């Protein structure tokens, strides 16, 4: 006698072959979706949000595309998650990781179809991944000791990363921007200190890196527009109405005159506060919170530049740049560290006025001003630049470098193929499959560039059969070229993360033999 209902209503259960099929299909669909964006000749996608306004994003960034998708397939969600993690961890390779995981699953499907147990496939994949990683490790180059060469490496990596993005036209320009910005960080991976300001207008080529700091704010009325040798106090304090913070306090008066008195006292309090601030010997005051008209006027009288409502990140960056500390009390001016800079002035970018701090003490932070024809272009440019910055900052810490253009995949595939030949048992099929999946990445790059992928891959393989080959796909000429000469490099850390997380995700999905979906939570119709 069968059980009619074990689960709640609408909960579904899929078992064995069907479950596996569902996850393979879902994962491959996601991989195919982003596949066409891979490589220098990859295409972009338009994403339209379902929210109000139906805002449109044009992008080529795998993580951004996947993040915006509404997916119901559980396996697909795993892939989206790895792409997100890749973005958080190394910043680039978000598309490659999904494509590789999808290819691994595609190969696995064939193996499972020919009656090889998923566990066997997994153990084969694990061996192959380990072997591929050590093959890469064997061939890495490390130029950490040689500053010039290292910088060249960074340039190359930045150019390779940018070449698949919208910035590819001016990749040299932007690569230089990114490298300069990252080198200023001196090894820290804190990308917050690189500020990116987007201003529509002009062309992408007009973008520039500013050594100082640019705050997207206006200078208060009647205050000096230009200050040399500025002493800056960075603060986070209420400059509107300074509330009494003691709980339960309230004003109770019985006559109008008293109201006026209290108001006067309040005003006096603010005046005192302003005096204290001025007492620091400053000529520029930047506050995170609002500055009301009254104190602003007082500042203007004292000839102090007061900037209100700089957001929190701006404050932190400014404090970092000028070397001051963020103050909230002003009673002992002698011990508060003030920030310094040579020149504060108002500058114009396009139509907008911005405040520019130059000649700062600590050169860690900097600002990149992006110019471009439209907001879509700027948004995409920011994402591309962000990718490049992430990769570069990671490379500064882990300076191992590989060649690009499908070279790492070919090296790995070759090593994995050799392992397959040596391994007895069914596992060798899985290892072979792994190498085929690796080859899918150069194949996709070639396909996306409209080249004859079968021909090219065959040529590449032949090239790589020789020892120490540097051959990869040269998309520009559409042939096999020497990657070292062409100057196409990639960071080892990115490749390693792609390899490991793709294998991990594939393994995870392969291990599943049953999918149980709970009934979706009912949402009240708020239409």
């Amino acid at each position: 006698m069968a059980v009619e209902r074990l689960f709640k209503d609408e909960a579904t259960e899929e078992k064995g072959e069907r479950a596996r099929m569902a996850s393979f299909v879902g994962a491959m669909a996601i991989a195919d979706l982003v596949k066409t964006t891979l490589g220098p000749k990859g295409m972009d996608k338009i994403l339209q949000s379902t929210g109000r306004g139906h805002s449109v994003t044009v992008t080529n960034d795998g993580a951004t595309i996947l993040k915006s998708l509404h997916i119901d397939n559980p396996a697909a969600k795993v892939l989206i998650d790895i792409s997100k993690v890749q973005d958080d961890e190394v910043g680039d390779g978000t598309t490659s990781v999904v494509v590789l995981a999808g290819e691994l699953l595609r190969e696995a499907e064939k193996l499972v179809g020919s009656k090889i147990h998923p566990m066997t496939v997994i153990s084969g994949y694990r061996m192959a991944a380990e072997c591929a990683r050590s093959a890469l490790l064997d061939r890495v180059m490390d130029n950490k000791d040689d500053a010039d060469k290292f910088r060249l490496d960074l340039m190359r990596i930045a150019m390779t990363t940018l070449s698949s993005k919208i910035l590819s036209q001016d990749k040299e320009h932007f690569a230089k921007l990114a490298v300069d910005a990252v080198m200023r960080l001196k090894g820290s991976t804190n990308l917050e200190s690189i500020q990116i300001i987007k201003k529509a207008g002009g062309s992408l080529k007009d973008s520039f890196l500013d050594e100082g700091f640019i705050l997207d704010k206006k200078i208060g009325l009647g205050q000096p527009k230009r200050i040399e040798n500025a002493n800056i106090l960075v603060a986070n304090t209420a400059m509107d109405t300074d509330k009494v913070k003691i709980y339960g306090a309230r004003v109770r008066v019985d006559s109008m005159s008293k109201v006026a008195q209290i108001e006067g006292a309040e005003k006096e309090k603010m005046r005192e506060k302003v005096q204290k601030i001025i007492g620091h010997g400053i000529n520029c005051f930047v506050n995170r919170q609002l500055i009301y008209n009254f104190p602003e006027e007082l500042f203007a009288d004292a000839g102090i530049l007061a900037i209100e409502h700089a957001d929190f990140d701006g404050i932190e960056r400014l404090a970092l740049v000028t070397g001051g500390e963020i103050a909230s009390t002003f009673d002992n001016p002698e011990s508060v560290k003030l920030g310094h800079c040579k020149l504060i002035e108002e500058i114009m970018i396009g139509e907008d006025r911005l405040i520019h701090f130059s000649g700062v003490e600590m050169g860690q932070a900097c600002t990149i001003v992006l110019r471009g024809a439209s907001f879509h272009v700027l948004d995409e440019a920011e994402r591309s630049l962000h990718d490049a910055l992430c990769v570069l900052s990671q490379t500064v810490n882990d300076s191992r470098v590989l060649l690009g253009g499908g070279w790492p995949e070919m090296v790995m595939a070759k090593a994995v193929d050799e392992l397959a030949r040596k391994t007895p048992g069914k596992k060798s099929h899985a290892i072979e499959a792994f190498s085929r999946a690796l080859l899918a990445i150069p194949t996709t790059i070639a396909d996306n560039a409209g080249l004859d992928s079968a021909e090219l891959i065959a040529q590449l393989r032949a090239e790589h059969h020789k020892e120490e080959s540097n051959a990869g796909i040269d998309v520009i000429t559409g042939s096999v070229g020497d990657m070292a000469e062409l100057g196409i490099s990639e960071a080892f850390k990115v490749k390693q993360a792609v390899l490991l997380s793709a294998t991990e995700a594939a393994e995870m999905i392969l291990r599943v033999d049953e999918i149980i979906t709970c009934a979706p939570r009912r949402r009240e119709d708020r239409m």
Partner: protein
Amino acid sequence: MALAFDEYGRPFIILREQESKSRLRGLDAQKANISAGVAVARILRTSLGPKGMDKMLQSPDGDITITNDGATILEQMDVDNQIGKLMVELSRSQDYEIGDGTTGVVVMAGALLEQAERLLERGIHPIRVAEGYEIASKIAVDHLQQISHKFEFTATHIEPLVQTCMTTLSSKIVNRCKRSLAEIAVKAVMAVADLERKDVNLDLIKVEGKVGGKLEDTELIYGILVDKDMSHPQMPKQIEDAKIAILTCPFEPPKPKTKHKVDIDTVEKFQTLRQQEQKYFDDMVQQCKDVGATLVICQWGFDDEANHLLMHRNLPAVRWVGGVELELIAIATGGRIVPRFQELTPEKLGKAGLVREKAFGTTKDRMLYIEHCANSRAVTVFIRGGNKMMIEETKRSIHDALCVARNLIRNNSIVYGGGAAEISCSIAVEAAADKYPGVEQYAVRAFADALDSVPMALAENSGLQPIETLSAVKSQQIKENNPCCGIDCNDAGTTDMREQNVFETLIGKQQQLLLATQVVKMILKIDDVISPTEY
């Protein structure tokens, strides 16, 4: 049926609204229950053993869980059937009590139910079956005690513990680096264990996970890891020889619990109030400074002014630290949790050799490490992994391994895994069955058959011929009188589990048998299921 008449012929309501309820009685009820239980067990059956598969569960909100842990699967499965819920409870209680073997216990209960159905069809009364099971489980548990081995371990010689934890981990997705994870788990447990009293407080082990990196980067930190950063961005990121003030009062003006009002009606009052307020902040910071604290950890938030004062006086601070974490920090650093500033004294400060902030990846994730604590009895297992599901699954696996290590410290007896213990029990029960006169004999024999189903499932999941393998191992056990023969899941070439180093804890196994028998007994005793029909 449920309709009776009194002496005047009036109907008598026994069951309200009888028509709208469906009712199953007698053998039908038992069969329906059994088949529900078996259905649940069947879901878990494929997850058993080192080659067991995972299940993917999608929650009502669309979140994905991929797991192999029986208790987790059942908990998230949204079971509606009452008997199904009993099975969920069963696995949960095994999880609470032992922590491991949650899949095995359900598979065992399912097998017992399957066998019971056959006996019921032959017309044996369910209670007799239940009693027979009870007898058999007693035999099996005693037999387990006999074949168990004690092994010695000391604080330095932890190899046997590691081996046992590895057996637990080998069935999970993390088996790629089971060795290192098992070592982490054992070291963590040894760090907090009270070897004299043979007790381990697992609350002292914090398991923290962060997406990114790879599984191999998972580490054991002799200290506490807090997912917070310094309250002020310019505070020092590293403090050596920190003296920590652990506070549960906010750096804010006092808020008395009684209702009160402070009326301001003159300018003087306004000014005094203002001065008081400033003094208050100043005092708070000064009090911390006076006792010699070099780090403040607070459960609540800071006012902007207080924050700056702290920064100004060079006193790094961390805010919004959760209650549990606060307690762990107090234990680890040997400090006391101080509820009021007035009660701060130098003795109540915690001490840590090194406190540092570490950033991860490209986003601004930072975590605070508190290491080299005065009392390293609190440890943290910090898990890294490729994606969110992986971290969650690793957390569950580590939890299982920690439980196993704890159980071993409580009771250092082990039995052999890979189905060896079950097969050995099955032989013992089978042999004992003949001694029982009466119907129970059949039930006892059925119990022996049910015991076989665990190794059978293991063999099946490993892609071996189940019946062939099981009979071979069984005959080997009898022939060699060796209770260590089990199913060779890993294709290692030997069936001797001693050589393969596959161990399980004795209490875990005993508990599995007892719990499974109890639940089956309960299910068999039900002979009437009344449920409202759908409308």
